[in-house]
Structures are given as structure tokens and as C-alpha cells.
């Protein structure tokens, strides 16, 4: 094969009772994402550019839990993670706990290409983002009503159950990334 591409937008318990319109909307956006990759690869673009391009589309799409549409933390914020790796060279870059970077995969690639390190976390990642002049946004950018309601439900379940956040009972149903 000249090229091949696979993508995902998250896994877990996805209800089969989704309204047809919602299901179709997801299918359309997955189709759009794979089409972006197909066209780029057919035109000879590099795997790293294609991975970034496809993930940027998914990060910018509020249906998926990355970039805009990211879930809320316990404190009601958004903390994003991303990583990228080139197999043939074993180069890799990753960021964790970033709060102001519009497209974290772009910053992960910058870690790989513009630093001698593999991962930056939290404040260090934000400093590196400033240094790299990567596109940054306010936390409000990541907000979606659907994720906020899920967050409020999770908080309410905490209160009702009286469980500690570290309880295994609590995590059994909720420990998805």
C-alpha cells in the first residue's frame, strides 16, 4: 500500500439509542476527518503533517473530548494532554495539563522538534507554549454546554454518594480518559 490512515474520536459506552440525527452528525464528522487525511496522503504529504492536520480537525470539533469540547476537571477547568511520535526515528513529544493551548497536538510536535526533551507538564508546558508562540486561548474557548452538564452530574453524584474521589468504587464507573 502507498499509504494508510486510521483515526478515532474516543471509545466507551456509546448508547445505541442516539437519535438518528446525532448519529449521522458524528458519522459525517468522522467522514470529514478521514477525508482530510486521505486527500493529504494522496497528495504526498508527510505522515506527521497528516496526523497533525487530522487531529487539529478533531480538536476543533466540539463533539469530541479534545481541544474545544474538552471535559471539565474537578475544579471546573480544562486540562489537556497530547503526544506525537515518529516510529522510524523514535522522536516523540508530549504535553500534559495544558490550559491555554488551542491545539495541544501542535505543542506536542513543537516539543519533539524544537526541544531536546520529550514531555513538558503544567506551568512548564505553558512557558514553552509562550516561547513557541503557539496559538493560545482563554479557558472559555473549551466550554461546551454538554460537557458542563456532564460535569455537574458528576459533581452531584459525588455529593450524593458521599464517596471520596480516590475511592475505587467511585472510579469503577468513571475512570475514562
Amino acid at each position, binding site marked *: *500500500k*502507498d*499509504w*494508510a*490512515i*486510521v*483515526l*478515532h*474520536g*474516543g*471509545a*466507551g*459506552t*456509546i448508547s*445505541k439509542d442516539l437519535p438518528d440525527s446525532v448519529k449521522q452528525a*458524528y458519522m459525517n464528522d*468522522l467522514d470529514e476527518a478521514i477525508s482530510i487525511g*486521505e486527500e493529504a*496522503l494522496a497528495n504526498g504529504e508527510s505522515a*506527521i503533517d*497528516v*496526523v*497533525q492536520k*487530522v*487531529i487539529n480537525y*478533531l*480538536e476543533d470539533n466540539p463533539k*469530541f*473530548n*479534545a481541544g474545544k469540547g*474538552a*471535559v471539565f*476537571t*474537578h*475544579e471546573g477547568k*480544562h*486540562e*489537556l*494532554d497530547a*503526544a*506525537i*511520535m*515518529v*516510529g*522510524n526515528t523514535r522522536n*516523540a513529544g*508530549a504535553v*500534559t495539563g495544558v490550559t491555554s493551548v488551542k*491545539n495541544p*497536538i501542535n505543542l*506536542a510536535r513543537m516539543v519533539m522538534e524544537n526541544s531536546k526533551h520529550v514531555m513538558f507538564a503544567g506551568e512548564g508546558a505553558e512557558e514553552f507554549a509562550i516561547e513557541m508562540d503557539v496559538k493560545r486561548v482563554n479557558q472559555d474557548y*473549551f466550554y461546551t454546554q454538554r*460537557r458542563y452538564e456532564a460535569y455537574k452530574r*458528576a*459533581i452531584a453524584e*459525588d455529593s450524593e454518594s458521599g464517596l471520596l*474521589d480516590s475511592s475505587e468504587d467511585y472510579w469503577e464507573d468513571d*475512570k*475514562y*480518559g
Partner: protein
Amino acid sequence: TVGCVVLDQEGMLVAGTSTGGMTNKMYGRVGDVPIIGSGTYASDVVAVSMTGWGEKIMRAVSGHTVSSYMKFKEGATLEEAGNYLLNDVLEPGDAGMIAVDKYGNMYMNMNTSGMFRAMSDSEGNREVAIWE
């Protein structure tokens, strides 16, 4: 979580993953996505991106496990390696996985009820799916 794995015309294998993590996560919690070898990994034989229960994906060193299975088990295919991780190492309900190997073989499977996913190659094989 979103992810993408690619084999390009030059034979380069790349894996990428991006996520907001888990709803209601505690301060400083890091999942599998940024951990090279767990949620994101690429070698000279395969590129892998994971999604699901981050802590379990990390404990299985998932991406590296798939690559090692293919490298060190003689004649192992991508499908065998992926199925080994999802069925023998991880537990039902834990995760989904996408991968592409150096020959352009594609894999997208999960042991959860669903995964938003799509794949395509230069020979016209194409699929977009949510459930099994």
C-alpha cells in the same frame, strides 16, 4: 480523546493522540495519552493510539506491548497483536485501539461497546463506524 495513526508514501509511521482527559478528574491527574509507550506509541513496525480507561492503558504499557508483540513473536500480525492487547491483557470495557503497521495493514477495534472511528488506505479500503 482523539487519535490518528498514519503510514505515508515514504514509509514513515506516526501516531498522535490528544485529549481533555476524564470528566471530574482530580488536580494533576495524567492519563495514558501523553505517556509515550502507553496511549501513544510508534516504532519501525507499527503506530498505535489508544482511548479509554487511562489508568489501565498505562498499566498495560499498551502501545509498546503491541509493538513488542509484533517485533518479537515470529510471524505475528497487527490483528493478532491488537487482539492480544484488547482481549488477553486488558479487560472488557477498558479501551479502544487504532493502529497501522509498516505494510499499511490497519486495525481499529475495542472491548467497549463503541468507538468513534474511521480508516482508509490507498487501495480504496474505507470504513467509518461507531459500534461493532
